[in-house]
C-alpha cells in the first residue's frame, strides 16, 4: 500500500497538481461547491423521510426526481476527491480525518444500500402516509447524521494537527494515523 502511494506521489502529474497555482484550487472548489448538489439533494430526501419537509409530495416522487441529481453530484464528488487525493496521497493516507471520512463513507453507503434493498421496495404502499415506517425514518436520520459528520471530517483534513511529522502525539492518534514513530 505504502509503496503504491509513494509511487503515485512521485508521478509527474501528482507533483504538477500539488504545485499548481490554479488547478488544485479549482478542483478543490468544484469538490466543495458540488456539495450543494450532492448533499443538498440528500438532505432534502432525508428530511422528507423524516416527515420534516414536502409532506404533501409522495416519497417515491421526491426520491425519483432528486436521485439523478444526487448521483450526478456524487460522481463529481468522487472524481474531484480522487484528484485531490492523487495530489498528495501519502499525506492523506496518514491523515486521521481522511481515514475517519472514508470509514463514514462506507457507513453511509451501507445505510443507503440497506434502505434501498429493504423498506424502500415497498415505497409505493407507504409513500403517501403522513408518518413513514420506522425503518425509513431511521434511514433518513442516519444518513443526515453521517453526511454532516463526513462534511466536518472532510473540512478538517486540511489541518495537519495529527500528521505523522507533528510529534509527540498520544499513542492512539499515531495508531489511528498509521504513523511509524521513533519507538518502532
Amino acid at each position, binding site marked *: 500500500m505504502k509503496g503504491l502511494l509513494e509511487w503515485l506521489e512521485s508521478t509527474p502529474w501528482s507533483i504538477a497538481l500539488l504545485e499548481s497555482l490554479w488547478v488544485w484550487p479549482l478542483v478543490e472548489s468544484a469538490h466543495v461547491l458540488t456539495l*450543494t448538489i450532492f448533499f443538498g439533494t*440528500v438532505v*432534502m430526501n432525508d428530511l422528507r423521510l423524516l416527515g420534516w419537509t414536502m409532506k404533501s409530495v409522495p416519497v417515491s416522487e421526491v426520491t425519483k426526481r432528486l436521485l439523478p441529481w444526487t448521483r450526478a453530484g456524487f460522481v463529481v464528488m468522487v472524481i474531484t476527491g480522487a484528484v485531490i487525493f492523487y495530489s498528495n496521497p501519502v499525506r492523506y493516507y496518514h491523515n486521521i480525518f481522511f481515514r475517519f471520512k472514508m470509514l463514514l463513507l462506507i457507513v453511509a453507503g451501507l445505510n443507503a444500500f440497506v434502505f434501498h434493498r429493504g423498506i424502500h421496495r415497498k415505497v409505493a404502499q407507504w409513500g403517501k402516509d403522513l408518518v413513514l415506517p420506522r425503518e425509513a425514518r431511521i434511514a433518513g436520520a442516519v444518513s443526515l447524521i453521517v453526511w454532516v459528520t463526513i462534511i*466536518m471530517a472532510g473540512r478538517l483534513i486540511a*489541518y495537519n494537527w495529527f500528521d505523522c511529522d507533528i510529534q509527540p502525539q498520544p499513542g492512539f492518534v499515531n495508531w489511528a494515523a498509521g504513523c511509524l514513530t521513533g519507538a518502532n
Partner: protein
Amino acid sequence: MPPETWLPLFEWFENTSVGTAVRNSLWIFPVVEGIHLIGLGLLGGAILVVDLRLLGVGLKRQVPAELIRHTQPWLIGAIVLLAVTGITLFLSEAVKCYYNTSFWVKITTLPIAIIFTFTVRKWLLQRLIVDTSWQTRLLGVLSLALWFTVAAGGRWIGYS
C-alpha cells in the same frame, strides 16, 4: 476595493472579543468553517428543489408555490446558520477580507441573491404557475447564477 476610510472599521471588527477568541483558538475557526459548509449544503438543497422545478426538471409534477412553501423554513434556517458562522469567521480575519477581492464579490452578490430569491418566491407564491415557461426558466437560471457567485466567491476567499 472599498474606500480607505473603511479600514479602521475592519480593524475594529478584527479586535472584537469574538474575532480575537476565534484567532486565539486552534479549533474554533476550522469547526465553524465546517458548520458553515453544512449550512451551504442545506442552502443548496432548499434552493435547488425550487430552482430545478422552475427549470422544468426535478420535481416537475409539483406546483412551484407548494415547493416554495415547503422549503422556506429550511432556506431561512440555512441562511441564519450561514450568517452566524460566516460573521464569526469574518470577525477573526476582517482585515484580510478588506483586502480580498473575492470577499467583496461575495458580500455584494449576497444581498442581491437574498433579495432576488425572496422577491421571486413571494411573487410565485401569489400566482398559481403550473407550467414551465421561458420566464420561470430565466428565474431559475438567475437564482442559480447568483448563488453560485456567492458560494464560489466565498470559497475563493481562502485562496486569494
